[in-house]
């Protein structure tokens, strides 16, 4: 299926020895931002995937090892972060100024 599974929640059932998981949450004004659109861009800045954050502001991607960029869009503003992911769990936070 191409629709995003429910964001956030346990990592049960995800094989972290093979999957490269990039996950985290979006924050603004000291609170998580629910319903923000978070997109994953590859090293050439090309769109790879997009999810909507959970009520707790969480997002999760299944990527591959390498350089990635995360960008969030929400009515309150946008945020961006570059990260280098490896096989396993890669956690980060996007803060909207």
């Amino acid at each position, binding site marked *: 299926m191409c629709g995003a599974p429910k964001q956030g929640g346990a990592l049960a059932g995800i094989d972290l020895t093979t*999957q490269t998981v990039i996950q985290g949450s979006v924050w603004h004004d000291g609170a998580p931002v629910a319903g923000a659109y978070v997109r994953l861009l590859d090293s050439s800045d090309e769109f790879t995937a997009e999810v909507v954050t959970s009520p707790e502001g969480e997002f999760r991607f299944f990527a591959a090892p390498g350089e990635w960029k995360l960008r969030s869009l929400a009515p309150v503003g946008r945020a961006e972060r570059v990260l280098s992911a490896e096989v396993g769990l890669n956690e980060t936070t996007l803060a909207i100024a």
Partner: protein
Amino acid sequence: MSRSDVLVSAEWAQEHLGDAGLVFVEVDEDTSAYDKGHLEGAVKLDWKTDLQDPLRRDFVDKEQFEALLSAKGISNDDTVVLYGGNNNWFAAYAYWYFKLYGHDAVKLVDGGRKKWELDSRPLSDAEVTRPATQYTAQEPDTSIRAFRDEVVAAIDTKNLVDVRSPDEFAGKLVAPAHLPQEGAQRPGHIPSAVNVPWSKAANEDGTFKSDEELAALYADAGFDGSKETIAYCRIGERSSHTWFVLKELLGHENVKNYDGSWTEYGSLVGVPIAKGA
């Protein structure tokens, strides 16, 4: 066919909610978004449970489609205005699907749910019921749907447009990156396909780029407007988005969507596969 015949703005949609003869329909894979809030008066379609046969991998048949639309209160005379999440992927899929069954008066809300939410436009959680109708569908129009044999025959002959992300095209990923990496048996792409990710046709807020930008995008990628075209992705919903761009916005004739897409092609025995960018 031009942009104004097939696409409406969020602003237009908001002004026309509740108009007689218009039915707003939200299409998603995960309908929990609709349940939390939807355009006022809009009915929902579930991409999976409403539009896919529960047993075989295929569409619902003509009779099932008629029963579905009748139950949703959509009549043959209604103009159906579609929108949804995932940058309108599933709404574009439904658009193509409605066309396949002969419903001509269909439009998309530009930007779908995302643009609507980013604009902070109102959503309603009120339950929507419409009186049932007696909907009559046409026989499926297979001039817009491609099957595997003609896809294999199209290698080096027709335009094959792979609309997945560059990493999926190259064979580094076998599924979009918001999903666990599983799906087809083999990664890669159909030989001679050009890679024009669906996302290049959309702005960040989910709206479609201008006709001029779109024409330049496909010309630059080596798309030959004189040839027939087949678009594909992984399961056929992102390629519906590109089918919409090529057929409905840019007016190309003979554009088909291959809904079997990579989950079928990448699991076929014996067909050629290419890897790398």
